[in-house]
C-alpha cells in the first residue's frame, strides 16, 4: 500500500459488497506499487499484486475526450455520448492517474448532456446502461449497471 495516499481503501482483494442496492461502488483496484486501475485486474500494470480497492464514486473527474455515436448496436441508446475521464483522487495522487470510459448522463428529456474536453464531471449511478438481452453477449456473463458522468456546474 502506498504511504502517500489518503484514499479509503479496503484491505481485501475481494470486490467490496455494496451495503444496499442504493449504494453501489465504482471499484478501482490499487496495487502494491501504488498504481490504480479501473477496471480491477488480477495484477497491476507492472505486475504488482493487488492490495486494495478504491471507490471512485465520491471523486470528480476531468473529461479527456468524448464522442457522440449515432450508429449504436442493438439495445444501446441512440445517440450515445461517451467520454473517457481521468479522476482527481486528491492528496498525493496526482501521479497515479486512473481513467474510466462511460456514458455521459442525460438531461430531463433523456438526451445526453453536452460535455467538452477539460470539463469536470461526477459519476452518477445507472441501474442498466444497455438492454442486456439485445446484444450478442450472454446477459449473465457480466454486469450491466454502472456509472455515467454528469458535468459539474
Amino acid at each position, binding site marked *: 500500500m502506498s504511504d502517500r495516499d489518503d484514499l479509503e481503501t479496503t484491505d481485501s482483494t475481494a470486490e467490496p459488497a455494496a451495503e444496499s442496492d442504493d449504494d453501489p461502488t465504482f471499484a478501482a483496484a490499487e496495487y502494491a506499487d501504488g498504481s490504480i486501475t479501473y477496471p480491477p485486474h488480477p495484477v497491476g500494470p507492472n505486475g504488482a499484486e493487488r492490495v486494495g480497492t478504491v471507490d471512485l464514486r465520491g471523486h470528480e473527474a476531468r473529461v*479527456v*475526450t468524448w*464522442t457522440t455515436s449515432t450508429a449504436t448496436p442493438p439495445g444501446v441508446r441512440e445517440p450515445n455520448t*461517451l467520454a473517457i475521464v481521468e479522476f482527481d483522487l486528491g492528496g498525493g495522487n496526482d501521479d497515479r492517474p486512473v481513467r474510466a470510459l462511460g456514458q455521459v448522463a442525460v438531461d430531463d428529456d433523456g438526451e445526453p448532456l453536452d460535455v467538452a474536453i477539460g470539463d469536470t464531471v461526477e459519476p452518477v449511478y445507472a441501474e442498466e446502461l444497455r438492454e442486456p438481452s439485445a446484444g450478442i453477449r450472454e446477459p449473465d456473463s457480466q454486469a450491466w449497471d454502472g456509472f455515467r458522468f454528469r458535468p459539474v456546474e
Partner: protein
Amino acid sequence: MGVVVGNRVPSVARRVTTLGAGRAAAERAAAERPTTERDVLGAPRGRGDMERVAIIGASMTRFGERDAWVSELLAEAGAAALDDAGIAGDDLDHLYVSNMASGEFEGQTGVPNGLAHDLAATPAYTARIDQTSSSGGAGVYAAWQSVASGASDLTMLVGGEKMTHRTTAEATDVIASLTHPVEYKHGVTLPSFAGLTARLYLDEYDAPRESLGKVAVKNHRNGIDNPHAQFRKEVDLDTVLESPIVAAPLRLYDFCPITDGSAGLVFCPESVAEAYVPADDYAVISGIGGATDTHVVHERADPTTMGGVADSSDAAYEMAGIGPDDVDVAELHDMFTILEFLQSEDLGFFAKGEGWKAVEAGVTDRDGELPINTSGGLKSKGHPLGASGVAQVYEVYKQVTGDAGARQVDADTGLACNVGGFGNCVTTAVLEGPA
C-alpha cells in the same frame, strides 16, 4: 495448371513417405524446373537457425457485397492462390484460415477443415486464426512461423469473412464483442473509439478536421485502380466532410464499409522458392512482429499512441535489419481515417503529431515519397475482417514483385500493419522483393 497435378495420392502411400507433402512437392517441382541455378534444397538458411520465408503465390477475391458464404469465399481465394503458386491442395503441409467470427456471423465454425476438404488438402494440418480485426496479420505470422520453424515446407493462408448479410447494428455488435465488459456495457463500438481518439488527436496536435477527410479522399482515389475493391469511385473532400456523423467528430466517409471477401497467400522456405516460381516472382518476409497493448483502451497513458504498432514494428524492423526510412510502400489499417495518422507516426514514418501534415503535403499519395494504401486501403477496398491483413500483404507482395499494374509504385521494400481491436493487438510485416 501447377507443376504438380491434383490427383490424390493413396493415403497409405502418403503415410509411408518420409517427406512432408511440401518437401515432396518442392523436390518434384525442382525436378521439373531444371533451369534453377541454386541447389534448392541445400541452400543455407538465412538468419541463424531460422529459415527465411518466401511468398510464392497470392490471390484475392472481389471485395464487397457477395452472394457467396464464408466457405465459398475461402475456397475461391484458396484455389486461386494455389493456382498462382503452381501447386495443388495436397502439396500443403499446413493450411491456416484467418477469420474473426464465422460462428457469430453465420453459425459456421470449423472453416479451416471445410477448406482443407474443398481443396483436397487433407491431411494438411489446419487451424483457424482469430485475432479480431488483425486475424489476417496474425495468420501471416502463424504461416511465417510454420515455415521459419521447419514445421512446414509449404503453407497456405486464406483469410475471409462474410458480413454483409447482417445489419450494420448487428455487425457492429459482433465486432464490439471484442471489448472488455466495462466497455461493452456502455455500448462502446470500435467507431466510438475512433471518434474519442480523433477528437483528442485534433485537439492535441492542432490538426484540422479536413486532414482526416484527405485520408479518405486519397484512399478512394487509389481504390479506383484496384479491380478487387468494394468502392471504385473518387470522392471529394466536401462529400467526406458533409457526410452523416457516425461518431463525432468522425463521419460516414471516415469509416471503412462492411464487406465480404477473401484473400490467400502461399509460403515456403526461401531456399526452395525458385523451385516453384521464377526468381523475380516471389517476395521474402524479411521481418515480422506482433504485439499487444492494453485490452481496456482507456487505460493507455497516451490514447493517441498505438503501443502495439510501435512494438510490433520495432521487432519487424530489427529482424529485417532496416528502419522506417527504408520502407518504400506501406499498407496501413485505415479502418478509420484517424488510424492512418496514428500508425504512420507509431511506425516511425513521421514524428508524433505530424502524420496529418504528411497527408496534407501529399507525401503519402501514390506518387508521393511514401505511398500509403496504394490498394485503396480498408477504406475503399473494404474490410472483411479476417481477410484484410492477408489482402494487405497481397498488395505489398504485388508492389515489391512489380505486379501491381496501374497501382504500381517504385518499391523494393514494403510494410503491412494490421490492427486488431483498437490497437489491442497488432502485427507488422516487412516484405522484400527480388534483389
